[in-house]
């Protein structure tokens, strides 16, 4: 197994219970591994919650940590994927002084060329939203910076895999077992 540091997108399907995030982050904290980004949402399956996080570790570490995550009672299944195996995106918001929109025509070019969009404009400020890969967001950030950014924020990575996630069939299997056990009782 490779000992090379790789960026992994970890997808965790779980129950939506208070405290589980603490339990998952403790697994990384204990091994002194930084979580680069984190997002939490519903998943494609009703009643199943999903954490997506990004870490830079070796595959050997990743495999062991996946086991530790899946050991948690409220975790249904965990997966990890490399960048090549996923379609992923992040979203960023830039808040900029409205006056600049008229004074600096270059800003409009940046928005146009980067396929960013203006979310809102008022007398004092306007907000640009840019979704995409980290490098694309970083580029927009670099280009806008000289004009002065009032606020900047970037979301955690969200991702889907190129291949099928075997979780749906797994959950169906769990449901079938549950029903069979219920019928038996």
């Amino acid at each position, binding site marked *: 197994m490779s000992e090379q540091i790789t960026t992994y997108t970890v997808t965790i399907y*779980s*129950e939506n219970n*208070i*405290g589980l995030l*603490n*339990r998952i982050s*403790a697994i990384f904290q*204990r091994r002194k591994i930084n979580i680069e980004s984190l997002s939490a949402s519903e998943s494609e399956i009703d009643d199943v919650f999903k954490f997506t996080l990004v870490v830079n570790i070796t595959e050997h570490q990743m*495999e*062991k940590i996946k*086991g*530790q995550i*899946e*050991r948690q*009672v*409220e*975790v*249904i299944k965990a997966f990890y994927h490399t960048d090549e195996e996923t379609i992923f995106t992040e979203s960023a918001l830039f808040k900029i002084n409205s006056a600049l929109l008229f004074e600096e025509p270059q800003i409009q070019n940046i928005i146009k060329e980067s396929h960013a969009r203006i979310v809102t404009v008022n007398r004092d400020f306007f907000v640009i939203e840019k979704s995409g890969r980290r490098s694309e967001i970083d580029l927009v950030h670099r280009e806008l910076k000289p004009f002065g950014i009032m606020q900047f924020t970037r979301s955690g990575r969200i991702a889907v895999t190129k291949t099928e996630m075997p979780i749906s069939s797994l959950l169906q299997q*769990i449901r079938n077992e*549950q029903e069979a*056990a219920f019928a038996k009782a």
Partner: protein
Amino acid sequence: METKTIQNPAKTTITMSGSEALIHCLLAEGADLIYGYPGGAIMPFYDQLHIHQDKIHHVLTRHEQGATHAAQGFARATGKVGVAIATSGPGATNLITGIADAQIDSTPMVCITGQVGSHLLGSDAFQETDIIGISTPVTKWNHQITSAKEIPEVLAKAFYIARSGRPGPVLIDITKDAQFEEFEFSYEKCEHIRSYVPVTEVKEEQLQAAAQAIDSAKQPMIVWGQGVILGEAEEAFKAFVEKSGIPAAWTILGVSAIPTDHPLNVGMVGMHGNYGPNVLTNQCDVLIAIGMRFDDRVTGNLESYAKQAKVIHFEIDPAEVNKNVKADIPVLGNSKETLERILPLIERKEHTAWHQNFKDHYNIEFDKVIKNDIHPTKEGLTMGEVIELINTKTNGDAIIVTDVGQHQMVGIRYANFKKSKSNITSGGLGTMGFALPAAIGAKMGAPDREVVAIIGDGGYQMTIQELGTIFQTGAAVKIVVLNNEFLGMVRQWQQLFFDKRYASTEMKNPNFCKIAEAYDIEAQKVTDRSTLEDAITRMIASKNSFFLEVMVEKEDNVFPMIPTGASVSDIRLA
């Protein structure tokens, strides 16, 4: 006061308070003997314990840590879930050492803590602490209850999670208002949680691959751990060992699964294990690990651990496979099921010449170490000879509870176990102070068995207050303190690796016999060999608790020893 018994709680609905519901949940789970310490936030529950004292027996320990270790001792002696109760704040935080110990040693335990009223959560109220946050990394599961109606389902889940799969500790935190709140109670045992797979399905191809590797092995060796005991696989394991004819060595938590004097039992692996199984780990061609997790104290340096061997790993917890040692053939599942199913697949064999190799190594170890430990010719008393005499006087039938340190290694090395669940010790966490309260729990769980706690003079003073629990309950625990007036294991390391700079390891001890006598416990101190045997006879003959202090040689060392970072095959005999 006469109290009601709910015959069939699943089919009954009765209005009651959350705290009374807790009692009925515990009874429905068979937990009628529990350990704990009261305080403000858990008072409604203690009130119900008082009302229901005819049905549920609560043992008041002298410290909450003692309650957890007693619950652990109870669990390890009986195989049932141990229960410990504490109040919020300091009561709850005092449970943490025992919970961490139960987590690393896979002991089934449910801890219930009181919590401040839900309207006060997060306000830094008196005795408020975030025990869910604090206990998260050391529990298998934890949950906070803020409403009485959650109690039945959460308690049912707690017991199910604690005892199923790879067992472990669960903590349930209950706010005071939830204990007072009235609701409609009914109880149903938990048998399934969607996100939780306690035991993975056994794969036939893994069994076939393992059987083939076992049959074609020339020099195979078994290392078994506590998984054999936790899986109640003792019979299946014995049959497997006997049919395969493979020499079997144990980890510190695995011992007693088969008798010490079984002809194929070749002793202990690891840092202070036996010479043969350690050296031959690096000579075997197939290493069959069963219900063990390749702890660093077992493997020594991983870079030179059994590199020549094909490794078969029987294991219930998928996260343990390939964690420390790569498994060529993993066999996932409950040890009883996997061992029963592999038995018909393997050939009956005898590895006579290979087994002789273990015997030869044992003879070397006997000459260089064991002989002098258990039949010393020097004047000072050794820990080994005390253990040897306890073996003789108890016929090997006792439950031996050890603390942590030199006496633990000597105790477990020389104890002669005949029955399973006879060895209770703090393995993974190495918790000094474990033995005295754990022995109390073990004695209450197995009242018909002799329970002998073997403790060092250091560890004894970490939970010595539990003598009060013995005084109040009359638990007939036999206490043996092997006193070398040192924190012996640390001193041994200071001698070997820190040029004999004995930093803070020498102890000026009190008169231990007087302390025991203050609690009405019969006590005797032995300072020379001539009185040792009689003292042990007297201790074992006693129907009550008995305290025996044996002054042993101050600077004896425990050998064999694998120095930290060394290979198992570089084990030192002196």
